[in-house]
């Protein structure tokens, strides 16, 4: 995901990121003037882990960049005890630029609302939408981790130019709908998914916007999943029953409009968390 975002964010300004990793050297003038030969380390002195990262760049001469420059004029004297390598500096600078780019293309600075009177609660990467209607409470829970499906094809599609802007990444998380009626001790739980990309765009626009995968009853208020309760899998379910379940959800506000708006919300949340992660990573790399 990190690589995909880096490619997307930098596509317009720094096409160099799409080139072989040798371009990952820091772009600041203080390094560009140094001859690689001058940076060669004494044999056997480079940290083995760091060397494996740089072998991708094809340059054994790069390993010297990983040596901490203790006591040099450019050394960091924060006293944190952590490594402060040239690679870390380059990494931090890269992250600074990435964060700036990601914020520039951030579609929603605040999380978009979902229509229909849903209240939103966010705990890190998990979001919960809650709605009360008549004597029922409906919650929809999803997690933005691993919610961006991989691209099916990295090669340009037929008729598409190679340098055309990549499509925006969207987050399509699985989501769990829980329906609790006031007078029952059971919660109806429905596990819903967005369809995976079908072959070509035609398949995608002719399919349901979301599907119900599994249905189960669980004791209300208990956090542990009771796997001795029957779980209905819709793969081989009677289609009339499936349609009734979909109508049941639609009556409670979980319909195609909701599913589309949830994608907007999830995508915004995922992007927000990704930027936060980059910022945390930058702080960690610069100085622990």
């Amino acid at each position, binding site marked *: 995901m990190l690589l995909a975002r880096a490619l997307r964010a930098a596509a317009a300004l720094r096409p160099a990121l799409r080139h072989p990793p040798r371009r990952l050297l820091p772009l600041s003038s203080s390094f560009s003037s140094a001859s690689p030969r001058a940076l060669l380390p004494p044999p056997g002195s480079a940290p083995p882990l760091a060397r494996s990262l740089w072998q991708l760049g094809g340059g054994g001469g790069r390993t010297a960049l990983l040596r901490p420059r203790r006591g040099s004029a450019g050394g960091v004297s924060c006293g944190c005890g952590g490594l402060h390598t040239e690679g870390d500096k380059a990494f931090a600078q890269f992250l600074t630029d990435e964060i700036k780019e990601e914020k520039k293309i951030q579609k929603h600075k605040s999380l978009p609302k979902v229509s229909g009177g849903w209240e939103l609660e966010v705990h890190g990467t998990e979001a919960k939408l809650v709605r009360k209607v008549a004597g029922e409470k409906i919650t929809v829970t999803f997690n933005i981790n691993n919610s961006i499906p991989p691209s099916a094809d990295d090669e340009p599609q037929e008729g598409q130019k190679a340098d055309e802007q990549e499509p925006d990444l969207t987050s399509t998380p699985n989501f769990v709908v829980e329906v609790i009626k006031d007078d029952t001790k059971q919660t109806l739980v429905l596990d819903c998914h967005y369809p995976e990309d079908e072959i070509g765009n035609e398949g995608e*626009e*002719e*399919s*349901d*916007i979301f599907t119900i995968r599994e249905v189960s009853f669980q004791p209300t208020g208990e956090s542990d999943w009771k796997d001795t309760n029957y779980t209905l899998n819709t793969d081989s379910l009677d*289609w*009339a029953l499936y*349609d*009734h379940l*979909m*109508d049941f959800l*639609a009556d409670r506000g979980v*319909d*195609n*409009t909701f*599913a*589309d708006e949830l994608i907007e919300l999830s995508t915004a949340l995922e992007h927000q968390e990704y930027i936060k992660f980059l910022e945390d990573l930058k702080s960690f790399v610069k100085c622990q």
Partner: protein
Amino acid sequence: MSVALRNAQRVVPVRRAPLRRAVCALRAALGASRFDVGLVCAGNGLMRRLNGAYRHCPEPTDVLSFPFHRVAVGELPRPRCRDEYNLGDIFLGVEYIHQQCRATGEDFDSVLAVTAAHGLCHLLGYQHNTKAEWQQMYQKEVEILEELNRLTGSSLRPLTAGLF
């Protein structure tokens, strides 16, 4: 055997269960219950694209039918294997239909069922390009809608009423 129903749009709320019931009843009235049918509820965008691609008329419309078999009017297909028990696909332009109903005051669910009946007849080779063809199709639509009316207590009339 199956009616594969998909709701691929978010513009208009569609009740899936009653639509499926109606299509199953209409299919049975045609004597084609053992054949699969695909039914896609589509928005104006998809209908425009399909209409443009297949009829060179890039405008939204109410129904497009794509028969699996080429059959003589009113005859059932003669499948050679299990995979050929398929009448084809019907795309219901639900957004277009909804807009029409708002203009005319008709009931959306009723018009949806009548449009599905029309689409099913097209899958079995019925056309309405000439008056004779229309009369033949109109009769069949009346027949199958009467069966649906008997089951549901409704009083639906064919889509092609008054076409000629």
